């Protein structure tokens, strides 16, 4: 869970966002 959250955060930060939404989670799902 923490790993999924951490990767979501990294993705959001890479996109300059303050919120992790399903769009960001979707991008990290394949590697997760």
């Amino acid at each position, binding site marked *: 869970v923490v790993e999924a959250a*951490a990767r979501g955060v990294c993705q959001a930060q890479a996109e300059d966002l303050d919120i992790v939404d*399903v769009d960001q989670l*979707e991008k990290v*799902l*394949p*590697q997760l």
Partner: protein
Amino acid sequence: KDGLLSEEEFNLWDRLYRLGDSDTVKGVALPESHFPSLQEDIVTKEPATGIRQLSLSEWSVWQDHPLPTHQVDHSDRCQHFISIIQMIEGMRHEEDECSYELKLKPFLHMEDVS
């Protein structure tokens, strides 16, 4: 016969399939995966020139349903992934309330939570 390529097979492979210095794409590599939550000391290596880094998300638009198979069906992991993508698709346009949360709320018993 010994499990290795015969001379003829080797020449065929060398001619048709082998990637080398004379090719634009000299090789392929999957991006390395690390655990941010384990706080590993990671040095991200830049892929060498000519090595094409493959993408796991390039075809994500196709990954919301199982594609046809032959002889062997999709793995549990694959079906799991597809289900999550479909779930995300269903939730994408939700605004304030989360349907998943609403469905589960009646079943939450705090004594189950550690």
